[in-house]
């Protein structure tokens, strides 16, 4: 992945920016230009805001077979997190044992390295979740 392709999403990834529809109030992550409920009525009314970063585990897995970019991390935990604002996101869980993870477990977002472009390349940062 080129650097630009990654950093153009940095603001969202670093700050957990979401959108709230000014028409119906539905929250979307990542930010969207159009609300999937209000369609055209939401145009120009999508308000960006920062998620609290807190939520609970909706589902999870331990990844043993991964693409080369994640070879050194495996096995690693991937989870779907239901944020307190209602949206879900997919991320890795860190700082906990796989055996401890349960559906409904409280977690919070933290800024971590999520990848790199080879040994001498740019390091990518983004969110991972840890027990609250």
């Amino acid at each position: 992945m080129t650097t630009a392709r990654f950093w153009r999403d940095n603001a969202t990834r670093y700050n957990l920016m979401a959108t709230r529809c000014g028409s119906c109030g539905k929250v979307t992550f990542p930010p969207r230009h159009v609300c999937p409920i209000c369609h055209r009525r939401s145009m120009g009314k999508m308000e960006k805001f920062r998620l609290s970063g807190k939520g609970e585990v909706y589902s999870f897995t331990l990844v043993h077979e991964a693409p080369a970019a994640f070879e050194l991390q495996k096995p690693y935990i991937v989870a779907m997190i239901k944020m307190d604002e209602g949206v879900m996101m997919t991320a890795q869980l860190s700082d906990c044992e796989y055996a401890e993870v349960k559906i409904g477990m409280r977690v919070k977002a933290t800024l971590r390295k999520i990848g790199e472009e080879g040994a001498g390349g740019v390091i990518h940062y983004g969110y991972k979740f840890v027990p609250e």
Partner: protein
Amino acid sequence: MREVAVIGIGITKFGELWDSSFREMGIMAGLAALADAKVSSEEVDAMYVGNMSAGRYIEQEHVAALIADYSGLARDHIPATRVEAAGASGGLAIRQAYLAIASGMHDMVVVGGAEKMTDVGDMESNAIQSSAADQQWESVFGATSPSLHAMIARRHMFQYGTTREQIAQVAVKNHLHGSFNPNAQFQREIDLKTVLRSPPVADPLGLFDCAPNSDGAAAVVLCSLDKARRYAEAPIKILASAQASDTLALHSRADICTFEATRFAARNAYKQANIGPQDIQLAEVHDNFTISEILAIEDLGFFEKGKGGKAVEDGLTKLGGQIAVNTSGGLKARGDPIGATGVAQIVELVTQLRNQAGKRQVPNAKYALAQNVGGTGATAIVHILGVA
């Protein structure tokens, strides 16, 4: 809208076909389908090719023109179109051909589906398949196709009490069915222990819960029903063709234990065919993972939501059961050369409806259904076929 029939089918063996190139497989399947239909190349009006990722698997784009060319059709200058919807590419190619004929634009169309997956390593193939998910918001964090399906499995177990054993039984059944299919990648029966003890891929799913990397191609010849009778005594009719989409990322859904795209497409298909799920005697469904088949048989209306695992465990989806699911062996045992899969499903349904399925024949089959899925249910294609 004109009625559309399938008058020819062709398929290669699925598996690790080291000796065969992408174009060879595509042509072999296509020529077999034309020979089966007793149609000469000059009669073909157009071609559609289902393919997910030739660009990454063999560094070759522009594959529809390639297949048309090597099929000997370059001088005929027919329109040749590649169709992509990840795992649903083949089913979508069929649907494009169906629409072209139903609309009256074309009379005779060849549909091919092909993927050459074993020219790259398993790790690269995992990355390519995971690109069917949302690259920026799923894959970049390390989510893979197996891991997303593993989270569906975990959630299905949590919400409905589905057991690990019930999920594994899908693989046992599909390997049994595959043992009756001479074109299947895996033709050996396996037992429950083999599935449960297979190397972990994404917990709770192991290697035997996942469809393999496969090479292969499949093709069908579609024709307007009025013209079809000139070529075939008993053409197989396409009674319904439906397609639906959903959010690309799994995490954008309210419930991950249902593929709404499958439900929507199925509802439309049943309406078009004027029948219900209880009328279907056999179905080819998209078991790219064992859990996917459980979702499919629920979302297609064969079993109540949450009861799919039990139905598999009770043998209701086996040959001879209430409804025969994946008589070909499914993606799990027949193999899953991605772009070929949706076309191979139609090949199996036609084989069954023609009463030519040998040891895996479903007796007196009248209505058959195919469900082809892209990604984690962002695209679903449902076709219903019947004896004309």
